[in-house]
């Protein structure tokens, strides 16, 4: 579905992403992990068109995405959520989601329909468990609610591939589990392929099919969660505060 080859991103003399290649198969959940500054978000920004890659190709369903503006990429069927939720506070929850649906859909045709956008918004809000009340204000939402809103906005664009950016930052353990299950349900019920970027390994390992680990802009490991979490290079990167987490995640993945 998605084939990334030889991806580079340089900011001045700094190489944020260094020759990264990977594939995503239709219907899978790929976890993308790595410490802060390892290049995860930079890859996401290139996939979603925030900025173009310095070199390399991003092919989605056979078409090249590298260098396309964000709205064209969304119209091809790639939705994304943001690490820090960025709703329009002057609009209602429903308006936020429906607006994303109105402009994000199109499947290349670019034809906008109000009725279709409203339907998608209702489906997306139901999928994440937010009220479909058209007047409900964004201000009433807490951290978990805002994350759900982000997800609903991405879903309303009816994506084939969902880029979920650090979906669980700022949530407590119970909310994290719920959110992880929600991502899995989105894949199972709606058939949406997902790339999930996350710091937190534990919950991610339970849900994803495959994991790719980045460090300093390079891919250092890729494979099944159980393989990756016992990879010495990964343990080395996550050594220290996260080492125990990694081993716990490995244990959980083996179960």
């Amino acid at each position, binding site marked *: 579905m998605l084939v990334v080859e030889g991806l580079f991103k340089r900011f001045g003399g700094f190489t944020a992403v260094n020759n990264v290649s990977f594939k995503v198969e239709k219907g899978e959940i790929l976890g993308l992990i790595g410490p802060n500054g390892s290049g995860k978000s930079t890859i996401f920004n290139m996939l*979603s*068109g*925030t900025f173009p890659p310095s070199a390399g190709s991003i092919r989605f369903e056979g078409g090249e995405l590298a260098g396309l*503006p*964000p*709205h064209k990429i*969304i*119209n091809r069927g790639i939705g*994304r959520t*943001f690490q820090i939720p*960025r709703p*329009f*506070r*002057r*609009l209602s929850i429903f*308006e936020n989601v*429906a*607006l*994303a649906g*109105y*402009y*994000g*859909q*199109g499947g290349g045709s670019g034809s*906008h329909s*109000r009725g279709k*956008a409203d339907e998608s918004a209702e489906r997306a809000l139901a999928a994440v468990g937010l009220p479909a009340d058209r007047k409900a204000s964004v201000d009433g939402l807490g951290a978990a609610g805002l994350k759900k809103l982000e997800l609903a*906005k991405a879903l309303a*664009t009816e994506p084939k591939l969902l880029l979920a950016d650090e979906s669980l930052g700022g949530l407590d353990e119970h909310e994290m589990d719920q959110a992880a299950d929600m991502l899995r349900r989105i894949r199972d019920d709606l058939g949406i392929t997902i790339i999930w970027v996350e710091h937190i390994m534990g919950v991610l390992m339970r849900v994803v099919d495959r994991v790719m680990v980045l460090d300093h802009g390079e891919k250092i490991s890729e494979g099944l969660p159980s393989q990756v979490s016992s990879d010495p290079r990964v343990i080395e990167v996550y050594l220290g505060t996260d080492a125990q987490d990694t081993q716990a995640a490995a244990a959980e993945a083996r179960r």
Partner: protein
Amino acid sequence: MADIFDVYLAEAIISGILLGGVLALLALGLNLIFGVIDVTWICYAELIMLGMYALYYFYSVYGLPMWVAAPACILVVAVLGLLLHYIVIAPLLDAPPINQLLATGGVLFFLQSFATVAFGIDFRNLGIRLPVLALGEMHFSYARLLAFGAALAGMVVVYLFMTRTYIGTAIRAISQDRQIMALMGVDTRRLYLVTSAIGGALAGLAACLLVLQYDVHPFVGLSFGPITFLICVLGGLGNFIGGFVAAFLFAQIISLGGLYSDLEWGYVLAFAFFIVMMFIRPAGLLARRS
């Protein structure tokens, strides 16, 4: 004596309301452009001046009926708005605000000079004299009543567009977060073009209404451009409701000030009020305290 005075007072207040409607329409166009694109069309009143000429030529020179001439005038100015954005603003979107200001300021002088060369400096009017409505002792010209009604109708249409369509919803929201709007699938360049066309169309509507009351000449923009700008600043640039309130406030000061003294003193009072308000509420009447 007291009765007569009250009649004058009532007439002045109603005149103020009528003037307020037109000023609110002027302010809405400028506010829309500022709120969405984050640039100030200093040359906004000059677009209106060209619109007034357009209606003059369509109606008086080419003899088109008013129901064809007025929509054509609105269309012409809407296209001018598009061109202004496409040629002048779009290349400067990422430039510092002062450059954008200077560029639209340059367009102001360009359009004034262009109009002088193309149309001459003669004062022209449509040659329509609408009757005057007499309400007891009070007198209002139909031109002003019509202008008020049409301005209000234009604003209602824009309001419905902004609240009932998703293009309008995007226009309302974009100033809050331009980057995320693009990442939600919105082609912001297209949104800016639509907004510029609407801003131009509002200027065209204003032109149709103003040319019913005033003569057109190349420098006519100076008589309402600055006041439009002050109203927008007083209401808080980009704040539609603030601009609406400020327009009626300004119009009332001008009208009542003109009642107690000469009309010019009304303007002096209005500008003095503006200066005082800028000290008290520099971010605009309805600015949220943060």
